[in-house]
Every structure is written in C-alpha cells, then in structure tokens.
C-alpha cells in the first residue's frame, strides 16, 4: 500500500498539514496546504480569553449515522478519524451517543477519559481539558460522551456550539451518531454539514438507511451525504445470496463513499483498542484508509474485495459446472 505514514515522534518532517474548504463536498479537490504549523500551536495552554489564533481553521464537520444499530457507525468513525490523522490531518472524534459511550473503547482510550461532552456543555471544564489526545497520533483527539446521562443532556444548540468551537481548531470533526431517529440523532446531526451513512447489505439496515437519508435530506445544514456499505461478504454475493453494492445503491439512490468487507481482523483489532486502519495488511484496514483519503478529497478507486476462490468453492464450481458471477 502506498501510504505516507507519519512517524509519531516527529510529525513535522512529513506531510504538511492540509486544510479543506468547509463548503467543499467530500469529493472536492480543493486540498490546499495550510500555513499553520502542525505542532501544538493551537493547543497552547488554555487562557481565559478565547485565543485569537491567526491559524484558525475551518474544519469540516461530518456526522456518521445509520439509523439501525450495530452496522458499524462507531467502528467507521474511529477508523476514518484515525485514517485522516494518519494522512496528517488534525482530527477530533466526538462521541454523541450519550449514555452509551463506546468510541473511547474502540480507540483504546477508555482509561484516559476525565471529562466528557456534557462537562464541556455544562461548563465544568474547558474544551481543551476534555479532549483526550491519542498518543499514537498527536493530531488525533477524542471528546467522549457521558456514560451516566441521557440524550437530553445536550441539546441541538449546544451541539452546534461544540462543533463550532472544535472546527476552528481542526481539519475534521467526526461525530459518532447514536442509532435511531430520535432526539439523539437530531442533536448529532445539528452541528454537522456533511453526513456519512453506514449500512450493511441486509434488508433491515437498508430500510433504516433509507429513512435516515430522507431525514438528512430534510435538514438544510447537511450539504451532502454518502454511503459506506459495511460488512460485505464477497462469497455470499458471488453465490447470489447477498445483495451487491449496486443493488443497495440502486435502491437507496445515494452516492457511494466506500465498501468495507466483513473481516475478522476488525474484531481482533477492536479487542486490542486499535482501529483496523493501523493494521495495514488487513483488507478492511485498506478499505478504511481509502475511504479516509476519499473524504480528504483524493480520487481513490474502490478496493477489489474479490479474494481468490477458496478451495471448497473451486471444488463446488468444478462439480456444479457453474461459473460464479
């Protein structure tokens, strides 16, 4: 894989930080170098006054949503965020699933959470105190959800304020949306200007995604939304037992951002608290890296998920005389 990775100790020697226009779509090619140094300049010790930062950024705020639970929203948020950070962008991940926080676990940062988004909103701490820096990627930070509160703890206006404050400091703010279409979804989407809809090739997930897309289209703030099809099983598609990418795109009438294969490595990496994009040889990791690059505006072709036939499939093909489609 051709990939500029940023060595942890000296981030300044590699890729220059880049910032993109807020109003650009996910596809926008307008990736231009920013003047800002990538060191922790913007992270100077919090002063009483709002720091007047000449290098203030206008980051993009992207919400990752799905409707149905368990399709991979949080995994997707963690991996796109980590992928973008690997590419050299400054990223904040925000867990908006208040009461059911999980993004910290997937990032392996669960032991380092001191303050959360509710503490920020209710004024118990400064934003900078609540942001947890990922030691593996100095330009990646997490704002955790509160575990002991519920969705009413943060309202839409407060969410907008949090997003506005964050996007002035970073290139990308990724919001991990709770499942469902209730207040939690409304809150999470209120601060965002772009959306990523995660879906699996299952009927219930596609139906819920259709509902979510309808709601996103009704929100004026959301300028565009794209689909990630997760947990694809090429073997099942080959045997016509599972819907294909084109089937889902056709049904939902939505643009594709990327496709992730079902991959046991995701379970393993989740258990280790390492997003799969850090495992470069894994197929799902490469797929997420590609998606991160597309989010950043690069034109990356879809990954070929068709692994060579398994022995059993070859034998079966030989006997049945059917060529797999």
């Amino acid at each position, binding site marked *: 894989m051709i990939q500029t990775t940023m060595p942890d100790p000296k981030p300044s020697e590699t890729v220059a930080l880049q910032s993109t226009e807020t109003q650009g779509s996910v596809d926008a090619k307008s990736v231009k170098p920013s003047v800002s140094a990538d060191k922790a300049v913007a992270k100077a010790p919090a002063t009483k006054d709002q720091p007047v930062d000449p290098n203030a950024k206008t980051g993009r705020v992207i919400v990752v949503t799905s409707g149905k639970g368990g399709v991979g929203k949080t995994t997707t948020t963690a991996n796109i965020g980590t992928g973008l950070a690997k590419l050299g962008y400054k990223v904040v991940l925000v867990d908006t699933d208040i009461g059911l926080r999980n993004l910290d676990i997937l990032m392996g940062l669960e032991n380092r959470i001191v303050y959360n988004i509710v503490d920020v909103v209710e004024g118990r701490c400064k934003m900078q105190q609540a942001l947890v820096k990922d030691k593996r990627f100095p330009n990646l930070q997490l704002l955790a959800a509160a575990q002991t509160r519920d969705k009413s703890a943060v309202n839409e206006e407060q969410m907008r304020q949090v997003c506005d404050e964050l996007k002035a400091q970073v290139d990308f703010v990724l919001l991990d949306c709770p499942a469902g279409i209730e207040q939690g979804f409304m809150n999470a989407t209120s601060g965002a200007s772009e959306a990523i809809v995660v879906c699996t090739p299952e009927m219930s997930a596609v*139906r819920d995604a*259709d509902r979510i897309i309808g709601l996103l289209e009704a929100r004026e703030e959301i300028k565009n939304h794209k689909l990630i099809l997760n947990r694809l099983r090429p073997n099942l598609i080959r*045997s*016509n037992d599972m819907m294909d990418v084109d*089937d889902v795109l*056709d*049904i939902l009438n939505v643009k594709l951002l990327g496709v992730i294969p079902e991959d046991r490595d995701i379970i393993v990496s989740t258990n280790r608290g390492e997003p799969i994009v850090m495992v470069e040889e894994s197929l799902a990791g490469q797929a997420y890296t590609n998606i991160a690059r597309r989010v950043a505006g690069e034109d990356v072709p879809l990954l070929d998920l068709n692994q060579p036939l398994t022995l059993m499939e070859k034998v*079966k093909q030989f*006997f*049945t005389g059917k060529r797999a489609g």
Partner: protein
Amino acid sequence: MASITSPNNADKSEPTQNSNGPLGWLVRFLNLDASTSSGRAIGLGLAKKDPRATAGEDARSHAVNRLKLVLMHDRTQISPDTLAQMRDELVQVISKYVEIDTEALELNFEGDSNTIALMANIPVLRGKNVVVAAS
C-alpha cells in the same frame, strides 16, 4: 445417502431416474443428482442449495424485490390497507362511467428509486351511456 458402502442397496432403496446406473451410488454420494439434491446437503455437501431457491429467485433478488416494495410504502407513507381503500374508491368512481372488470383491476406502486408511480391497470368491459349533467 447411506449408500456409500453398498451400491446395490442404494439402488433398491431409492430408485430415482437419474441415478440408477452403475455409478448411481457415486452420483448420489457426491450429491450431484438434481433429483436428490433438492434439500439438505448430504455427503460432501458439494451441491448445497437453498431449498427455497428456484430459478432466478435467489436470496439476493428476493431481498431486492421485497425491499423495493417495502420502501415504496415507506416513502409514500401509504399502507397496503390504504392502497386497497383507494382501489375500492377508484372502482366506484370509474364504474359510474364505464363498466370495468373489478376482478382484474390492478393498482400498484411502480418505479425506480427516483420516481414512484401509481400504476393502475383497469380493464374496461363496455361503456355506459352516461349523461353528464351540464352545469
């Protein structure tokens, strides 16, 4: 499929059309015979097949077709019940002017993901002499 050891037994117990030959036991052992592979995968499971699958009606197209129908009802927020009511009322209105075959009448949603159309197929039996009241 317990016929691996004794081909003679197999021929007696389950004489099927295609697997009667001298190699019939092999055919059935490998589960290649269409007439016996309709259900579970036995033997090596080489010809494992979904028993519900008929030609062109695999799980994938089932899912696509069912989803399209469900989403049309979701998007239009018209339930099958409402559709039936519409159908009945349409019959009433049209019957005022022409005699129609109410049995053969079809009223369904059709279309792709962009547009949804309400398609009605109303077979007309004969016209009625209706004097339209002039206003």
